[in-house]
């Protein structure tokens, strides 16, 4: 093949690829319509493709996809550091730092700007806001009054009965975008059960998503459908998994292909993290050819676990001492980590709670 012919073929291939990408890009973005995005609360955040930000609203029982219009790649080697984040936000919103709750944090994988879901106030009248922190540390409000967005309702509690508001609420504990779907873990304030729901994106009218029941028998014998506390998508050799940390401490792997509407899925326990394990957030990263989980933990600090070959990990089937399955080490110098997200290949973004002062900074992956 001569060079000119190759070049022509390459250009044709490139053009087709661009068109394919552009069609997907358009489908995602054209589903978002301008207008006011109504959020009753702003909880878990997750980024999807094309700078689309998903916001979990437990109080409103909805997921809203917002076009961040933030698609300019961030500069390589950028770092973020904001000390006293809650004080700065309180100042911007005309209130005291104790009235600011930072509910979640997500890094835009394209621009590396940081998005925060924030409550101004602590009661039922708290105002839900989305704020952006750029790489210079400047904080701005993401206006929800006229933004391209799309909202889907979750199949929540039955409607109000005879004028009384229904006290049942499904709190969204975590959310992630995997392979064209938003996965949502929820925890009810009434019945004890797990709900892991997936909703295809772009959202379709009346599509409530499908819910699956996940059981796990940590040591083989007793099963519960315990709620998922936090989870992270993980792709091994082209196969998508969800690694879910349960409220009752095991770390469980679930193949995404098993999560079919109405299915009863049995998760496989790959680690039993033992007492005092209170996982807050997890990310997966690669270092020196090895995959690791980094887990922020309320009472244990930040834990690092090598996780190569999760597809080959076998279930734990008998009672065992602490640290069964994946071994972990605690990163002693990382204390008070309240939120965690992946920043780039070499860094995580962490929100530290230092005696009531929230500090945001990038930290080299250990």
């Amino acid at each position, binding site marked *: 093949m001569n060079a000119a012919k190759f070049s022509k073929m390459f250009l044709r291939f490139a053009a087709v690829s661009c068109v394919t990408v552009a069609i997907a890009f358009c489908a995602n973005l054209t589903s978002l319509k301008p207008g006011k995005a109504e959020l009753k609360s702003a909880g878990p955040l997750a980024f999807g493709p094309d700078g689309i930000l998903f916001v979990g609203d437990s109080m409103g029982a909805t997921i809203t996809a917002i076009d961040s219009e933030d698609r300019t790649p961030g500069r390589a080697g950028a770092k973020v550091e904001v000390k006293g984040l809650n004080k700065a936000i309180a100042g911007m919103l005309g209130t005291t730092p104790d009235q600011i709750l930072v509910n979640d944090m997500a890094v835009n994988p394209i621009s590396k700007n940081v998005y925060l879901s924030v409550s101004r106030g602590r009661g039922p009248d708290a105002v839900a806001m989305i704020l952006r922190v750029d790489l210079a540390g400047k904080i701005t409000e993401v206006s929800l009054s006229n933004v391209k967005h799309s909202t889907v309702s979750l199949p929540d509690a039955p409607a109000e009965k005879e004028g009384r508001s229904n006290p049942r609420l499904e709190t969204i504990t975590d959310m992630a975008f995997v392979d064209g779907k938003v996965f949502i873990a929820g925890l009810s304030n009434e019945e004890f059960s797990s709900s892991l729901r997936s909703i295809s994106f772009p959202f379709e009218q009346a599509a409530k998503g499908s819910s699956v029941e996940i059981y796990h028998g940590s040591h083989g*014998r007793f099963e519960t459908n315990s709620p998922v506390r936090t989870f992270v998508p993980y792709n091994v050799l082209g196969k998508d998994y969800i690694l879910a940390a349960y409220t009752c401490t095991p770390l469980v792997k679930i193949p995404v292909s098993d999560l079919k509407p109405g299915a009863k899925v049995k998760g496989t326990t790959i680690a039993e993290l033992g007492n005092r394990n209170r996982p807050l957030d997890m990310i997966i990263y690669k270092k020196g050819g090895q995959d690791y989980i980094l887990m922020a933990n309320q009472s244990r600090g930040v834990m690092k676990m090598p996780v190569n070959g999760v597809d080959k990990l076998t279930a734990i089937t008998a009672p065992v001492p602490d640290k069964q399955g994946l071994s972990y080490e605690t990163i002693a110098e990382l204390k008070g980590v309240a939120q965690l997200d992946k920043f780039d290949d070499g860094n995580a973004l962490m929100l530290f709670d230092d005696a009531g002062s929230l500090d945001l900074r990038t930290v080299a992956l250990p």
Partner: protein
Amino acid sequence: MPIARIILVLGLLPFLAAAQNVSIKIEDGRFQVTGWTPGASEPSGGWGSIFSVYAGEGDLPPMLGSYAVENGSLVFRPRFPLSPGVRTRAVFRTPGALPVVAIFNASTAAPAATARVEHVYPSVDVLPDNQLKFYLQFSAPMSRGEVWRRIHLLDPNGKGVDLPFLEIAQELWDRDYRRLTVLFDPGRIKRGLLPLEEVGPAIEEGKSYTLVIDREWLDARGAPMTEGFRKAFRVGPSDRTPPDTAAWRVTAPKAGTVDALVVKFPESMDWALSLRLIEVAGVAGTASVESNETEWRFKPNAPWKSGEYKIVVDTALEDLAGNRIGRAFDVDTFERVSEKISGKTVTLGFRIGQN
């Protein structure tokens, strides 16, 4: 050099003093620059480049808000009404003039304490050692974010039990922030898990405990409660038996009355779920749960008519230990319950007669 700089500043002072008549006042939550006439158009850096208002102490970004020229004056409206206790500093800068700074001290009137704990469910004072949750019902909306500092479980010696509850950051409130659900750590209830094997259950059979709720817990307005709350209870044996509706006793009222239909349970059931998951098919009315949550009562809106009725029970209904109808909280996979209830509801029939 320093001397030259001082002379330069002194030399500029007559010009800088030109902004002397400018002042900033606050009225109806708006910050207004008086004694200065805005130009026809906004400065290139926006109104924020010449007039900013800061809330709180220290080097903070300016408050969010909007600018307008009203009756010839520049006005800043904060994005939100100022919270009580917030001091503000408004700064007006024009080229060639010293900045005009005005400080407004905030009102510090603290709201009066009015909220209290109305009730803690379960009402009963003997709980199974695998008790799953408490519901805390408050008289007024409360504040989120400090639950785990305000709730304590004391052991028989009055010492705090270490991490008895599932401390999730989201906090399981209802929409009004008047009811909080507190789950015991399921890792210390479900059999076969490390926490239960290592540190045992949060509560042990035969012992007495006290649930303590601090008065200092702030309500939604930022006021503490009028009083704290204590619930003392004893711990009985585990309950690993799924509730069975066949053991419920139904007492039907008479036709033509609006008397309550009464369903008696052989054990206390989950309060919130009993209220929500039991109904009489086709009859509108009001349900209540009484007698330490062993009794479900239903009063119809219209008098009962003679005939056959059905009580419909969602199988998600739980007892105090989280055992659901037809399924225990944790199922022993080697000794599975042989009779599985596959449907989502079970029904109980009853008849309304004239006598």
